[in-house]
């Protein structure tokens, strides 16, 4: 088992005819992902890497049974793509797109509440269940199937941590990046219960960063509800306040969102916090 992405995952690529969409469709197919459809309005009838392209999500879902969508469309059109996927009954949306306006994301977040669609992202690398399927842009070859769940607000930092885990002999059940923006779909406290309930996950690595209070909420959740061990890492200890560190959401403002506050919240919840990504595999091994 795994979370969010498994053997039953049937992917539709929104923006499949674009440069990034086509490129990553190929890589996802090579990894073994069942990419069953693509959507680009006005380009229905074409094929991209043998995947049929449709004009609308309704058509794609009805004709191919797609249940997961991955979005590569530009920021201006990404919210429309998300609404369309939600209305077409997609169960999991993975939005890779960076730069979506915050007020648009506020609406999407609140609109999702009345549905059974889940959203990962935006501004994220996606979700991978090693050996089964990858839905996103992460390099597949660094992953190995195994018992560790990985959830992160970052992209390349996650790759760094995953490759440390793999080198240290610790495979992964599912790895996902939930996105670096201020307003994102699923946050740590939505993902942790899934790992807790997943039979094949024995421990979780949580990679947070400065900005917001999602890590503090995660620490509370772990303390109250989780039996499986969690190891954390927080990026941005050396970051100055008031400056956006690359990610839209990575900013210490008005004294909230500091690395110290997050680290201390995890320590209070008995969650070990690695000082460097290198320490993570050993901290996991001690507990799993």
């Amino acid at each position: 088992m795994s979370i969010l992405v498994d053997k039953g995952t049937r992917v539709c690529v929104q923006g499949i005819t674009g440069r990034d969409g086509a490129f990553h469709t190929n890589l996802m197919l090579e990894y073994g992902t069942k990419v069953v459809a693509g959507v680009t309005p006005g380009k229905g009838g074409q094929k991209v890497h043998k995947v049929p392209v449709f004009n609308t999500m309704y058509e794609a879902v009805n004709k191919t049974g797609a249940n997961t969508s991955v979005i590569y469309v530009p920021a201006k059109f990404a919210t429309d793509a998300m609404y369309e996927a939600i209305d077409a009954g997609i169960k999991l949306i993975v939005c890779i797109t960076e730069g979506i306006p915050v007020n648009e994301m506020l609406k999407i977040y609140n609109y999702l509440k009345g549905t059974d669609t889940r959203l990962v992202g935006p501004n994220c690398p996606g979700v991978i269940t090693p050996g089964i399927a990858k839905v996103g842009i992460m390099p597949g070859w660094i992953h190995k199937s195994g018992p560790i769940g990985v959830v992160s607000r970052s992209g390349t930092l996650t790759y760094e941590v995953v490759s440390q885990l793999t080198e240290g002999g610790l495979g992964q059940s599912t790895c996902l990046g939930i996105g670096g923006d201020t307003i994102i779909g699923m946050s740590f406290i939505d993902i942790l219960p899934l790992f807790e309930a997943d039979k094949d996950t024995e421990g979780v690595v949580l990679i947070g960063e400065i900005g917001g209070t999602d890590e503090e909420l995660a620490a509370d959740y772990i303390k109250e509800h989780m039996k499986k061990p969690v190891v954390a890492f927080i990026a941005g200890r050396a970051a100055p306040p008031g400056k956006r560190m690359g990610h839209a959401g990575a900013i210490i403002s008005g004294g909230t969102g500091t690395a110290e506050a997050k680290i201390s919240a995890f320590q209070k919840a008995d969650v070990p916090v690695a000082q460097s990504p290198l320490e993570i595999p050993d901290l996991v091994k001690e507990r799993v």
Partner: protein
Amino acid sequence: MKIHEYQAREIFTQYGIPAPGGAVCNTPLEAKEIADKIGKPVVIKAQVQVGGRGKAGGIKIARTPDEAEKLSKEILSMEIKGIPVEKIMVAEYFDIKEEHYVGIVVDRASKRIVIMTSPVGGIDIEQVVKQTPEKIHKANIDPLIGLENYQIQRLIAPLFTDPELRKEVILIIKKLYQVFIEMNCSLAEINPLVVTSKGELLACDAKINIDDNSLFREELAKLRDPKAEDPLELAAREAGLSYVGLDGNVACIVNGAGLAMTTMDMIKLYGGEPANFLDVGGSSSPEKVITAMKIILTNKRVKSILFNIFGGITRCDDIASGIISALNSMEVPHPIVVRLTGTNQEKAQEMLKDTNLNFAASMTQGVKKAIELAR
């Protein structure tokens, strides 16, 4: 993105939020003319995008046009928190009876828009939140529904009793919400919202921050004042990089924000001081590497440079070719440490084998080497 008070005031005026009469200028003589036209005492305010300008002496009251000229000259020659004052706002001065606060922000935790009011205006609202939280009134707005009348009623009840004033305040709050939505704000604030001794309502200060992700809208992007920004951060952004300058001497060039922050953290952990945050982004072309190097080299504190690249989407050979072009096109007086892992790493290593760079097999090794070379 922050914008200036005078720009925010213009936007408020367009939406019909009442503000004191006045204008913006950049010479003492113009200030005198504006004061003369107003024909009453004026308040002169430095237009800088930092907090605490009042305490720093950037806000002064002038009773006559001549005094306005003299005080403007003083303010225009000031630097506030390192930022030279380029423009001043000259506005009619009023005797103040009450000062209130109205602000609208995006609330990350609740994923909603939050509107706040307080009868304690004119001072930093964070301070009010900390010291007298009972004097802050809040309403959560569902972005799909918008601001409802009952919410405004609840917010202003503790602030205003006069029925006429309440009618006016309701309109002001509705207009402020409209500004917030239509201008893609992350913050829209009137602090203070003043009741004058004659009973008029006026927005005596205006503050707007615009969501960086909305700057594809030209009418919003053109509000940016490049002079209000750090020149290196500006150059980086224009090249599609993300850069923040710091005080240390170990420079780093990294792909991805999380890894870039971690690289800084590691430099500190092993006893060094990072000179910057620099994320070259996902699909990094050789040109981006060259720009990154140029930016790093303008920082005179830098003693060594570390490349920390984990190639996923970023191809290591693209980075390598950027490093080679940079070395060929400019004088690089500092030692360079290179850690390249991932997509096309063998190709990159082959390309760089005849250079005198220092190679590191891991992030830790690279960080330690770069610190050693900076000593």
